[in-house]
């Protein structure tokens, strides 16, 4: 023991590291820092829950893992962005801009829901009786087509010399870009807006699942879709409606992302959102909405915490991105079915 300690302290890195860590820990636990990290984590969780909610609804009922979900989010971002750019003038006030945002969400939701309905009827329905593998393959193909189509349109209209469509960011009301200080904790307006939007979506989907007839069908269909159809429910129509709803939520999520400078409307947005969305639904347990919400919170908070640590203490730029996948891997190792998952999900 006595020989080891001087040896270690002789190395500058080792002698400095514990002290540095203690300092960092003290700073991290100070109310201001902790508050900021938590707010950012909640904002990220809101984004994650937005992009993952549709995915989990579709999987929960139909057992279809929709690989095209990210591309649909991307389409929503462009479509919503288009509405925003067209409707918002230079001098519009904050209220008008928020109204335009509402309009963009409605348009993106409607258009994507319609597209989702068409996709379900035209492509997914014929292969329900095949192994789940084929549904992954099919939606993966749809992703390729949608991405390339988007790329063609974007190139043709010259929307994007850069990767992020900057015009959309300019349609934000100014108060969203400012920082707000509450009890010593500073948070950006955008983060608070995202949290509001995320909470509204979670509440909305939860009410849909527990308070409406279709929600009842969805929950019942997740258990046993054959029994549901035996009871006289048109299961095919329920599937179409839920698929449309899921893609619609993806579209709305896209509009929310279009205002966030960290994401923005771009063609690669599809792949960028798909992977975290997968992580969230898998960590939560595929097909359980409650699990998805909890997992989004976990991933968001872990992500913002690790980002702080890696920015301030440990120097490795890529690690925050890696953390999301590490959460996935660790969860699956410890609890293979996810936090709230059951071994058999989906009606097929």
């Amino acid at each position, binding site marked *: 023991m006595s020989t080891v300690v001087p040896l270690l302290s002789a190395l500058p890195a080792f002698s400095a590291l514990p002290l540095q860590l203690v300092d960092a820990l003290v700073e991290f636990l100070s109310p201001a820092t902790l508050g900021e990290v938590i707010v950012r984590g909640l904002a990220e969780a809101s984004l994650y829950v937005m992009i993952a909610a549709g995915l989990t609804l579709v999987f929960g009922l139909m057992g279809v893992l929709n690989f095209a979900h990210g591309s649909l989010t991307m389409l929503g971002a462009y479509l919503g962005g288009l509405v925003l750019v067209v409707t918002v003038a230079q001098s519009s006030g904050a209220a008008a801009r928020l109204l335009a945002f509402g309009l963009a969400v409605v348009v993106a939701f409607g258009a994507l829901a319609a597209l989702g309905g068409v996709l379900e009827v035209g492509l997914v329905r014929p292969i329900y009786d095949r192994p789940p593998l084929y549904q992954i393959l099919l939606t*993966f193909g749809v992703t390729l087509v949608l991405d390339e189509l988007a790329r063609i349109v974007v190139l043709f209209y010259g929307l994007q010399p850069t990767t992020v469509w900057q015009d959309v960011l300019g349609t934000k009301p100014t108060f969203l870009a400012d920082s707000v200080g509450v009890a010593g904790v500073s948070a950006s307006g955008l983060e608070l807006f995202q949290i509001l939007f995320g909470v509204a979506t979670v509440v909305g989907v939860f009410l849909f699942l527990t308070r409406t007839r279709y929600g009842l069908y969805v929950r019942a269909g997740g258990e046993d879709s054959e029994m549901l159809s035996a009871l006289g429910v048109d299961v095919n129509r329920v599937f179409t409606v839920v698929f449309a709803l899921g893609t619609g939520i993806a579209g709305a999520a896209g509009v929310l992302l279009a205002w966030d400078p960290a994401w923005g409307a771009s063609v690669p947005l599809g792949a960028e959102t798909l992977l975290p969305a*997968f992580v969230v639904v898998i960590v939560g347990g595929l097909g359980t909405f409650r699990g998805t919400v909890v997992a989004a919170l976990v991933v968001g908070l872990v992500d913002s915490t690790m980002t702080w640590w890696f920015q301030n203490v440990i120097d490795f730029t890529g690690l925050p991105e890696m953390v999301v996948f590490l959460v996935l891997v660790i969860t*699956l190792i410890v609890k293979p079915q996810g936090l709230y998952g059951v071994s058999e999900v989906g009606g097929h």
Partner: protein
Amino acid sequence: MVLAFAAYPGVYTLLVNSGLSAEVTALLPRIETLVVVLFFALFAMSFDFISGYTGYLSFGHAAFYGTGAYLVALAANDTLPLVGPETPFMLLLVLAGVAAAVVALAIGTVSFRLSGVYFAMITLGFSQVLYVFVRDWDFVSSAPRDGVAVTGTTEGFEIGVPGVDALNVAIGQLTGDSIEGLLGFIDLSPTEVSFYAIGAVVLVCYFLLQRIVHSPFGRTLIAIRENEERARAIGYNTYVYKLSAFVISGFFAGIAGALFVGFRRSVTPENGFYFLVAGDALLVSIIGGFGTLAGPLYGTLFDEGVREFLSKEGGGGGLLPYLRANVGEGTLATELYNGLTVAEAINTFLNGHAALYVGLLFVLFVLYVPNGLLGTARDRMGGTLAKAVPTRIRRWFDE
């Protein structure tokens, strides 16, 4: 088939120099593209070996391809301990395979506790962890985001018998050997030499894989795909079988990655480790035939062929330069719809947008031809083509 591939460079050169030159350069893939087809097909085969034969979708297969590729690039730049730039390439190939197999063992040990969608996702998760890691790790190169180029050595990687100079040929577009006057009349350009050399390695790997598929081990894998419960009930330890298949698959994916760097001499995180690389392998496996070993080769041939045909600015061939050269100015300036001219339409819909058409075709294949090109052909013929075709021909002659 092997003969067709072997004869292709000769026929291609012959045709390019013939009267049909313009049509040939536009339609047929270049030799460079065919080299890509070869090593990527090996990767797709290794992917199909695990996913097509056991039914476990390995969505993170790019991890093994990337491992092999990075190992060769790093060894050549003298970044790795123990293996330096003077290590023979054939040894590096094996080492790349072994390294990838070790990674596969580590990932597989954990992942095979899961099945179905969860398996696909955990392999994807692992490969993305590696992707981000390699992308930001400055050990790899000073700008890890841009990947690694082989700068440590200017000599081409040699395929052949290690240690015997006469039995080695260097591969690579600019660094490879060229051969003049072989058997008195054959001249080969560096790319053509690479084509044959890489083709030989891929062929050996293919035969090895085929041997495994047709062994009792391979049959067990198919049993697992068809009904894992039953396979277990008969007494097979399916976990061990799946894991071994995964490791074997990782080994060959590593070799494919090594060949890739051997020819291209550089690798980036995007074309080595990113999950869409595995997506491409999936794509070509489906088009060629899922669960058939040779299928991915045809799928890759098709995919790369279309991509080159519709390539941006038509680098060295393809549709675009052909149309520019052969369609009159008047036709190109004709207005189709609302100010969109024919030239613009071609630029918009055909220039570099092969992914759209390959994607559409992929969707159609999943919907209507789930067995792929080769699988469907086999179903029609009632057996593997190598056995069915001669029987057919014999029957025609008998009648």
